[in-house]
């Protein structure tokens, strides 16, 4: 007993095209293969539906054509941050990108995100990304005795940092940043977003330490406000604005 939209095209407002063909042009890299350290492009054609996402097409390829195609994924609905990749030259989550929305008339190019070492096909080494995140002290810092009940926070104070709490650490922003591409030492937008989340939390007392870290030569001042990150963020976080607010805090807060 399951409801399957057999033919989404007949759904009112599902906005769906019936089944259609798409070709994915995927950047492959596998040091164990005959190509060694060379990366190559492979084309795959699959039959898909209007509600299918790039992730569905990747699964079809992996499950029906080439089991060695390698990518990360878990939740399949844009909440776990596993599957950021470059789709037609833009960073997106494969599970949140409907095929019909990325011009399926031409081959859709799929590449790993840039600026992090590629491990295999669409999989990159995320460790440098997480290392920057860990460096900005991404946890609540408080002093004094803990209250017995919860700490109080007004709804307005809570709202102040709401936007940056949405981050799923997918790296779409950081790996779309031209500064990060040329200088892998730069903390990158995601780390700054997560610093923002605490700097603007009224309960937190670690702003000074975090601002000091981000005042480093690889810190916020490297941001050139190109807005790539804001465009890339699948959670709709205003990344550039968050970075600007951190910069401003650095100037206005004495430390």
């Amino acid at each position: 007993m399951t409801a399957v939209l057999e033919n989404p095209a007949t759904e009112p407002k599902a906005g769906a095209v019936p089944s259609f063909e798409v070709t994915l042009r995927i950047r492959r890299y596998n040091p164990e293969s005959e190509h060694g350290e060379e990366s190559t492009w492979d084309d795959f054609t699959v039959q898909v539906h209007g509600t299918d996402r790039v992730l569905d097409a990747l699964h079809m390829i992996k499950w029906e054509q080439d089991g060695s195609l390698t990518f990360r994924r878990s939740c399949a609905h844009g909440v776990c941050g596993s599957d950021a990749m470059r789709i037609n030259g833009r960073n997106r989550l494969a599970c949140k990108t409907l095929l019909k929305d990325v011009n399926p008339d031409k081959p859709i190019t799929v590449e790993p995100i840039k600026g992090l070492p590629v491990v295999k096909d669409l999989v990159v080494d995320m460790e440098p990304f997480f290392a920057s995140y860990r460096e900005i002290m991404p946890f609540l810092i408080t002093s004094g005795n803990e209250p017995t009940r919860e700490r109080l926070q007004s709804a307005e104070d809570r709202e102040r940092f709401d936007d940056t709490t949405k981050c799923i650490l997918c790296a779409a922003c950081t790996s779309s940043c031209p500064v990060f591409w040329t200088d892998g030492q730069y903390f990158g937008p995601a780390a700054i977003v997560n610093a923002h989340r605490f700097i603007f939390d009224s309960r937190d007392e670690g702003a000074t330490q975090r601002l000091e870290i981000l005042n480093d030569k690889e810190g916020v001042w490297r941001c050139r406000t190109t807005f790539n990150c804001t465009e890339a963020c699948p959670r709709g976080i205003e990344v550039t604005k968050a970075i600007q607010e951190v910069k401003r805090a650095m100037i206005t807060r004495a430390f």
Partner: protein
Amino acid sequence: MQTHQYDVVIVGAGGAGMRAALEASGEARTAVISKLYPTRSHTGAAQGGMAAALANVEEDNWEWHTFDTVKGGDYLVDQDAAEILAKEAIDSVLDLEKMGLPFNRTPEGRIDQRRFGGHTREHGQAAVRRACYAADRTGHMILQTLYQNCVKQNVEFYNEFYVLDLLTDHDLTTEQIEDGAEVNATGVVAYDLASGEIHVFQAKAIIFATGGAGKIFKTTSNAHTLTGDGMALAYRRGLPLEDMEFFQFHPTGLAGLGILLSEAARGEGGILRNSDGERFMERYAPTIKDLAPRDIVARSMANEVREGRGAGPNKDYVLLDLTHLEPAHIDAKLPDITEFARTYLGIEPYTEPVPVYPTAHYAMGGVPTNIQGEVLRDSHNVVKGLYAAGEVACVSVHGSNRLGTNSLLDINVFGKRAGRSAAAYAKTAGPHRELPENPTARVEAQLAEMRDRPDGERVADVRKALQETMDANAQVFRTGDSLNEALAEIRELQKRYRNVSVQDKGKLFNTDLLEAIELGFLLDIAEVTVVAALNRKESRGGHYREDYPDRDDANYMLHTMAYRRPTSAPDAGDGHVPGYFDHVEDFGDYKVVLGSKPVIQTRYEPMERKY
């Protein structure tokens, strides 16, 4: 092969695993092994809230919460455990707030609370605001907050490591072990996805926190990676699985996709309607209507569809109506789930009702534990040094049907307990116990066989067939016939599984190989689920047998304990306590033996469940 030694090893970095890690890592040398980066765990997908009788917005207390949990679970709940859950809920929410979790706030600045299905005041009088929440991303905030605190505490992680075997000092599948005799867990065997290397982790205490098994079904709210690994590993090593027939189908999955729309949508005022626009839940649960427990709502929806009142061109779903709510209210309280409807179905929830249908959501059953988180090897003996918490475990606080917001609570309360117990045990346990000879042999043989097998069946074909038969035959409505059909098909698929092959033969990041291994877990979990469902000839909570539509307390007020044994072993599954169930399913190569375990009842006498 590499060998590591720790005091405590935690398998899984979701909410339960990381909550345990925060307790254990300060006390004992601890490692967390996870097949996903911690922040990718499916706890992050949880939306609606976490229950605790804080009484921040209206009168409430833990005793009402306990009662609701027991009644919600159709009285198959162990009441001592439910009482702990409800009492410790309050501290576990406050703990999270102190760790930094950004809960929504009341005008006074306290943690805000909202209504959720089955949570009531005064034993069912009216819905109560008990769910603490952070918009509709409560799970995301819990997972992030726990990870942040693990970073703060310098917890050691082994990410993208798959645990593929559990090591013990006795073979529980073949040995006859005396009542009271000591059995110890000694370590786990893991596979490093990046390198393809095998690692052995020797530990004094091991905590399983591997989450659920939703991928045995086709339509599910669960992640691709929720393949029941921990349950299957324990089961294959001879440990029982408890109450596997109870699987929760969440009423509001996006039709055709299974992506979840939280019950919070109804908590905030959303209404379910059939094709006539009728608010049909008024007929099924006159008092709390759309906020009845999930099993009741899911069955009511399926029944509307079955009786021809489904909406849409194929009349195969019902509608979740939010159009009477203020858009600003929707944006403030339900931003993510309304976004899902827009992204994936192209529906604008401000103005259009959203097509929904039940989706496989939560495993009530799992690896049996006591209230300290210790794993049981039969109805009452524990395995020393082995713990489980979260969705993989069955304590049992959810009985035959979990209430919404009680799982985020469960992972925090029992994750913390398991972490504490494991660390305390590791400190007094003496030196590490010896590992069995050649500890990796089994895993290596399994991987080599799978990798080296020449052209065979595709993993995806077998998995799809499994998921389809489970959806068709073991979902909201079940009968003896449908379950037998499912079982016959699973048996066939088990045979086909021995012939599946992978195309990727490499060592590096071979997800093709690991998907094949995960399929093996899914088959075993589906099989034991169906065998247990066949045996339970009554309807209770999430398990509804159309051929036995009534609850039968005289015969079935018992937990099911399922054991996998060689065909030659004696049939009394738990060996010493002749369980009530003498059901044995002999498959030739092995058999599934069903024993039982008493339900612990303290305050509440089973009553008829009405809402």
